[in-house]
């Protein structure tokens, strides 16, 4: 009896050990597989960075830091500089954010705080579907509908009344920095709206109830309790929209009117890093030319990376900052 018990305990132990080993093995296997997937994303990013750097080394060694300040993109004389493309990228994206921010934040607040329940889901769904429209479709719409509208009345009226500002000078071509900014604004609306709405929904209801219990109006409740609470999430949403705008290619290429020049007027045709690459890559016929385009891509990646890092930091903050309300 005693021996049998001892034996069964021993068998149990062995069974436990085996199952522990099995579990352990399964755990390890799982961990290795998941880690491999996780690291592959990092490896892909690193590989991309290395590849861009590798491909642009001829341009880097030829132009050095002068590439950043250079204002020419001249394949005949083999002189390339990035300044107008960087300027165009940043300015068109800023226009987009300035135009899109109030609209998408307003839409997000409405959808999360004020819209009747039957409207919330369909409207949110529609906003998010906007993000699925291919950018070349936005571009075609831009050429046929948006650009003529921007030429007349927008640029005619702006030029007529505010023509004394350097922002609104020059002939109203329609295509140009303004058209690119407007089309980008439309394209980043859904991403900002969706993320901002999620941030707003993450605010605990107790915050709202407490504010209302103190006798606050709806506006006071939203501005003091909700927006205060998740403002870093909202900033993150806007920065992610900015990151999207910086890299957008096709639609911008089709409406920006590509002129490689730094011009203060928003009416003037311009060029962005992404549109420059899209336009010229297939016909770039010598190695320095492709190399310069690659360096442009490297710079664009750098700018986008900075914006995304800033966005990440802010979005992370909201996840662990219920005490942010204390201020």
């Amino acid at each position: 009896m005693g021996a049998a018990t001892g034996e069964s305990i021993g068998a149990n132990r062995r069974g436990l050990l085996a199952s522990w080993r099995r579990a352990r093995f399964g755990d390890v296997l799982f961990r290795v597989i998941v880690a491999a997937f996780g690291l592959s994303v990092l490896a892909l990013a690193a590989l991309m960075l290395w590849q861009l750097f590798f491909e642009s080394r001829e341009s880097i060694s030829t132009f050095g830091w002068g590439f950043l300040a250079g204002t020419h993109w001249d394949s005949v004389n083999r002189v390339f500089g990035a300044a107008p493309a960087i300027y165009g990228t940043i300015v068109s994206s800023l226009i987009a954010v300035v135009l899109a921010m109030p609209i998408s934040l307003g839409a997000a607040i409405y959808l999360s705080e004020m819209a009747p329940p039957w409207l919330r889901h369909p409207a949110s769904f529609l906003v998010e579907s906007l993000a699925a429209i291919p950018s070349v479709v936005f571009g075609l719409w831009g050429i046929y509908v948006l650009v003529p509208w921007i030429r007349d009345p927008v640029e005619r009226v702006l030029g007529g009344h505010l023509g004394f500002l350097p922002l609104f000078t020059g002939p109203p071509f329609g295509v140009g920095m303004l058209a690119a900014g407007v089309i980008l604004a439309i394209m980043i609306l859904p991403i900002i709206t969706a993320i901002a709405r999620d941030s707003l929904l993450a605010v605990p209801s107790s915050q709202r109830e407490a504010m209302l219990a103190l006798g606050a109006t709806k506006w006071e409740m939203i501005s003091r309790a909700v927006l205060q609470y998740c403002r870093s999430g909202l900033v993150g949403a806007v920065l992610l929209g900015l990151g999207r705008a910086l890299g957008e290619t096709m639609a911008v290429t089709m409406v920006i009117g590509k002129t490689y020049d730094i011009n203060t007027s928003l009416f003037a045709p311009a060029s962005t890093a992404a549109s420059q690459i899209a336009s010229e890559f297939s016909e770039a016929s010598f190695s320095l030319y492709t190399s310069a385009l690659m360096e442009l891509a490297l710079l664009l990646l750098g700018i986008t990376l900075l914006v995304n890092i800033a966005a990440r930091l802010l979005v992370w903050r909201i996840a662990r900052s219920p005490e942010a309300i204390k201020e």
Partner: protein
Amino acid sequence: MTKADNSHSARPSRGFLVLIAGTLAATVAAVLLSACGGSSTAGSTTPSTSGSSTTTGSNACPPSGAATSLTGAGASFPYPLYSKWTSQFDKQCGVQINYQSVGSGAGISQITAKTVDFGASDGIMTDDQVKAAEAAGGPILHIPMTNGAVAVIVNLPGVDQGQLKLTPDVLAGIYLKNIKKWNDPAITRLNPGVSLPSSDIAVVHRSDGSGTTFIFTNYLSKVSSEWQSTVGNATSVQWPGDIGGEKNDGVAQQVKQIQGAIGYVELAYAIQNNLTWASMQNKSGKYVEPTLDSTTAASTGVTIPDDTKVMITDSTNPNAYPIVGFTWILAYVNQPDQAKGESLAYYLWWSIHDGQQYSKDLLYAPLPSDVVKKAEAEIKSISYQGQSLLQLP
């Protein structure tokens, strides 16, 4: 399908980018090919094709043992014509040819890397490119396939098709932004009786790198020393002004929308879309409208070197439209593979003879007979281990 649609794919480069770009290019090419295959069978009722092609075509097929598939890549401008040719040649001779319209620059790098059996380009390879290709596969041929013309289009209400007359100097002056108004004396002097507005000239150019721009800037460099020294000749240049449009349709849209605009597009695109073009003064002083005949005239009766590496812009033929260029297929003289080389040589021979009959329907200008002679000699030189691959009866 317009010619403007099909030059979207990226140029593959080394490393893992090859994977992405290659997949993209293959997908695009597959989609385009299937689309074109569908439309060409649907529209294969063209009566002009049947009779002559069967008689000469039976002799033109490669011998048994030749490869039944070839790949090529390059210029997008001749793509609609090449895709018609490849489907016809497949029907007649059972040789499938996969042509990817990835752009002339990419075509040159792919034939240099020998990832395709032939390349195609709207421009002549530079000395550096020829050196690189010769290092990879020996001497390389430029074989002319068809002519392309660039039409200068305008948006001037009240001005009819071909009514506006421009000289080379004035066209260069407009694109250099030296001539800024339509009622500039330099323009009105050429156009008595045409009412030209006092408005600004909005100058539109291609924003993407293209063979069309190469031919256009080659012409301007020939006729204007100021253009040659300040801007020059390339598939994409630093334009003095004003706005860029993406592809032919981008340029055409800007010109259509902006009163007082001037732009340039491929002739076929201008014909298909009923755009108003200007008559250009040619080298003999005659004003000529861009048509298929005046385009073919540009390479008729002029001296063409044996290697056909010549830009025929600003032709001396008195009937020629001046902004015209060849588009070439690039192939190595010494073929590394006998079976493929045979198919290639027979296909090229078929293209410059039987293939030319499809040109006009697709709005390409056929090659004149003296250029066909030069091309024949080039194709006969294609060989495997010193033996010409073309065995004609």
